[in-house]
């Protein structure tokens, strides 16, 4: 058929799923399966809390070292924080691994979701939904969960770390050593990492969803 691409493009324009609609549907789907969503969000929350704690720890440590405090006290603090730094390096590795494990868990949870919703997916295809709508819905769902988990993890990571520093070194020293700008930057990065992780983890399940044939999806007895 000549101009197959033109044809596809033409039909692409004729079948729509407005983005706002897709968002509403995705968010409702999350609400509908709250417990499983908590597990997914919880996984990301923990991983990102860990990540943020390490980042915050390094950031505050650096700032303390840079600050010209009482000479003697600074030396003590420097020695202590050097030790912390070495620990941090190992912890970075742990974080990478924990992020991967988290991602695998999300993929598993999304695959379960796709399998459970085979009727819903098949029905939407019967109503004319294009494959990319299905992908969009699942990716959005995962992205929201990632965003929420990462935001919560970021806040918790920062708060816990700051509190632990205050406990170790005292209020007055730490409160002037919080590198706000750095933390904002790192916090944004942590949120992006968490959200991206959730999105990437959902790609494979979303593809599985598009492979479902409307006919199989509907006439199969459960």
């Amino acid at each position, binding site marked *: 058929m000549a101009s197959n691409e033109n044809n596809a493009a033409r*039909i692409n324009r*004729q079948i729509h*799923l407005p983005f706002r609609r897709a968002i509403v549907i995705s968010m409702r789907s999350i609400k509908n399966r709250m417990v499983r969503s908590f597990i997914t969000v919880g996984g990301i929350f923990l991983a990102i809390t860990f990540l943020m704690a390490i980042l915050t720890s390094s950031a505050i440590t650096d700032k303390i070292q840079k600050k010209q405090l009482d000479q003697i006290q600074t030396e003590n603090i420097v020695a202590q924080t050097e030790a912390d730094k070495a620990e941090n390096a190992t912890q970075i590795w742990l974080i990478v691994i924990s992020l991967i494990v988290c991602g695998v868990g999300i993929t598993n949870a999304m695959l379960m979701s796709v399998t459970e919703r085979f009727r819903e997916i098949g029905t939407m295809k019967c109503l*004319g939904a294009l494959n990319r709508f299905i992908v969009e819905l699942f990716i959005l769902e995962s992205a929201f969960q990632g965003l929420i988990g990462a935001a919560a993890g970021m806040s918790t990571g920062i708060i816990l770390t700051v509190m632990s520093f205050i406990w170790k070194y005292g209020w007055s020293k730490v409160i002037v050593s919080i590198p706000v700008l750095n933390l904002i930057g790192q916090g944004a990065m942590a949120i992006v990492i968490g959200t991206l992780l959730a999105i990437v983890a959902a790609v494979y399940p979303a593809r599985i969803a598009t492979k479902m044939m409307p006919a199989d999806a509907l*006439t199969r007895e459960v």
Partner: protein
Amino acid sequence: MAEENMVRMINVVKEYIMGTVTVNALKKINLVIEKGEYISIMGPSGSGKSTLFNMIGGLDKPSQGKIYIDEVDIAQLDAYELAWLRCRKIGYIFQSFNLIPVMSALENVTLPMIFAGLTQDEYTKKGVEILERIGLGDRIMHKPLELSGGQQQRVAIARALANDPVIILADEPTGNLDLRTGREIIDLMKSLNKEKKVTIITATHDLKMLDVSDRVVWIRDGMVERIEERADLDLKVGTIEGKEI
């Protein structure tokens, strides 16, 4: 009388390969369905009824032979065109209703309209109209969980009518409903068939469907056993039904 053929099946064969065994689901089906007809496809389980049904609905492609839906050869359509067909030309009704659980009745009905690109005002207005026509005007914001089986099936019928399709395919529409509700659904479908002149094709076990059908196609072992006209059926229905339910 100008006959417009809505569906034409010519020497349609469907084979499934399961491992080393080839299953002949359909063996040379020839069938013509006219515009505005109400057709029931009846047959025992395993007769190929569902396979035939899927073919007519563009949900599956034949191994051999041709199927024309509104004079379009569906075997030639790619995924996009099939999606368009399902969105605009064909409405589907299922045994298990298949409403999207996270959406209200109105949202379920208007989803195909959203796909078709209607604006929010347009699709809300049209959705409410259709729901009122089928008698659920006071339940438009209810989720499927909050509706009875019969009501859910009515929402499904409303959804099937969303984009004014030319064909409605109903796969065992009364399968999950009790006798009285099933009767109501069948009556609703018949009145819509007459009112909107939409071709209705049902695959069913339900004998109540017999008296509303223009023709009945009996399938057995993947072949059309016989096709009965309404007139031939009238005599039999009297003995099957007995009392009015």
